[in-house]
């Protein structure tokens, strides 16, 4: 195999970087489990630092040498025909997509380290990483691998007898596979709003059925009444006069338990897609929080209004 770059200190630096990003990335991915938090934290910061270092190096290289990153270009006719240097077309795109994906995964992790509600986003972004790596491997093998010895040579010779078109086809298939893996990696990273919506619809339907069983006159819930309940001030317990004492006046913000200081994730569904998705969880908290603040249970209609308010924000 021909070396992709001739050997000099810049190449050595690049190899060091590549080893570091592989190592820290693999370690960070495998230790995402809470049990190895410090390893995850350390390798995640190292990984993010290396992504940033790569961009800095590319800027310093000013478009020259092995450390430069080329701007992804639109495919031209020559490259598409399979005769031109496919590698020059594909590599910049691959590098750009990978660096973007890795930067999102790494920096969302750092954000989550300081601001807990970011954890969900970080998890879904990081799940894209193995796909990006799979795409990268497929592309690099497809573009650079030239069998020379042994079984590979036999296969290669056999293939070359099938003619140049076959090898172009093979390489294109490798590239296509790689591109699909990269694209699905990016696709995975995007949250799936449809899946979130249906759980909430089911909960709202249950709440409505309950409210109608208690009072047949109820036809729909009113977010404005829910908001009024959320902000109302009460006198049952001076330490927690309002729902907003713990949940903060703006439900999109992270709250804090008034007694223990424990952070409470945002209540608005727009800021926290898990809200209003589990009737059991709602019931449990209504049965505790309503008596604690109002000195009585919330009615079925109040519960529905409150949930509608969370959904509307």
């Amino acid at each position, binding site marked *: 195999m021909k070396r992709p770059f001739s050997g000099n200190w810049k190449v050595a630096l690049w*190899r060091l970087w590549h080893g570091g990003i592989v190592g820290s990335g*693999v370690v960070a991915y495998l230790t995402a489990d809470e049990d190895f*938090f*410090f*390893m995850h934290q350390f390798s995640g910061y190292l990984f993010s630092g290396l992504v940033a270092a790569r961009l800095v190096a590319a800027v310093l290289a000013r478009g020259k040498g092995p450390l430069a990153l080329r701007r992804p270009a639109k495919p031209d006719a020559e490259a598409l025909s399979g005769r031109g240097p496919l590698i020059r077309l594909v590599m910049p795109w691959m590098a750009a997509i990978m660096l973007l994906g890795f930067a999102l995964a790494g920096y969302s992790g750092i954000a989550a380290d300081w601001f807990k509600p970011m954890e969900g986003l970080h998890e879904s972004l990081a799940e894209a990483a193995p796909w990006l790596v799979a795409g990268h491997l497929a592309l690099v093998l497809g573009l650079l691998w030239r069998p020379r010895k042994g079984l590979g040579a036999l296969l290669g010779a056999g293939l070359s007898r099938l003619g140049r078109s076959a090898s172009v086809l093979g390489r294109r298939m490798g590239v296509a596979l790689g591109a699909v893996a990269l694209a699905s990696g990016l696709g995975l990273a995007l949250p799936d709003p449809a899946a979130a919506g249906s759980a909430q619809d089911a909960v709202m339907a249950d709440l409505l059925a309950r409210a109608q069983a208690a009072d047949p006159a109820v036809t729909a819930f009113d977010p404005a009444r829910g908001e009024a309940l959320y902000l109302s001030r009460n006198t049952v317990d001076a330490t927690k006069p309002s729902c907003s004492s713990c949940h903060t006046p703006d439900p999109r913000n992270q709250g804090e*338990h008034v007694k*223990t*200081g424990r952070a409470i994730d945002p209540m608005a569904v727009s800021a926290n897609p898990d809200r209003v998705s589990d009737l059991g969880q709602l019931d449990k908290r209504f*049965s505790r929080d309503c008596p*604690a603040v109002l000195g009585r249970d919330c009615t079925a209609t109040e519960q529905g209004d409150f949930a509608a308010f969370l959904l509307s924000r």
Partner: protein
Amino acid sequence: MKLLRETVMLGALSATLAGAPLVAQGEERIMPVTDPLTLKECGECHMAFPPSLLSASSWRSVMANLDDHYGDNASLPEKETAAITAYLVANTGRWGSPGVSGSSAGQPLPRFTESQRFAHEHRRFTPDRLAREGIKSIVDCVACHRGAEQGYYDDD
């Protein structure tokens, strides 16, 4: 494939580097709660406290009085209460709490924050000082120990 070999070797090197802090901190670790149900239900209003902080009899009395839980209502369905009790009691440990006994009827609930060892480690944190630093309660472990939920307490 020299390039590949070097990459793998460097990867292994940085993996070792990444592992070092874990080994260094391993000794002081207090096993955090690992049971998902306990993590969820006992981690809502404060960090889910490690089972090793209280004795089995203390956990039993905490769990038998969830409706009047240090002034809050933390009640749960019976099935869940039983499952959590079983987990906590099975995982009490030696950090434990001599000086905190199980409470019998009429006595206040046991607090590991009143155990000799805990009180000694945190003797400088008077209520005044906590208020000055904007910390609501000494039970907000993560306010000072950022790794508390992973079991690390000597990192401040």
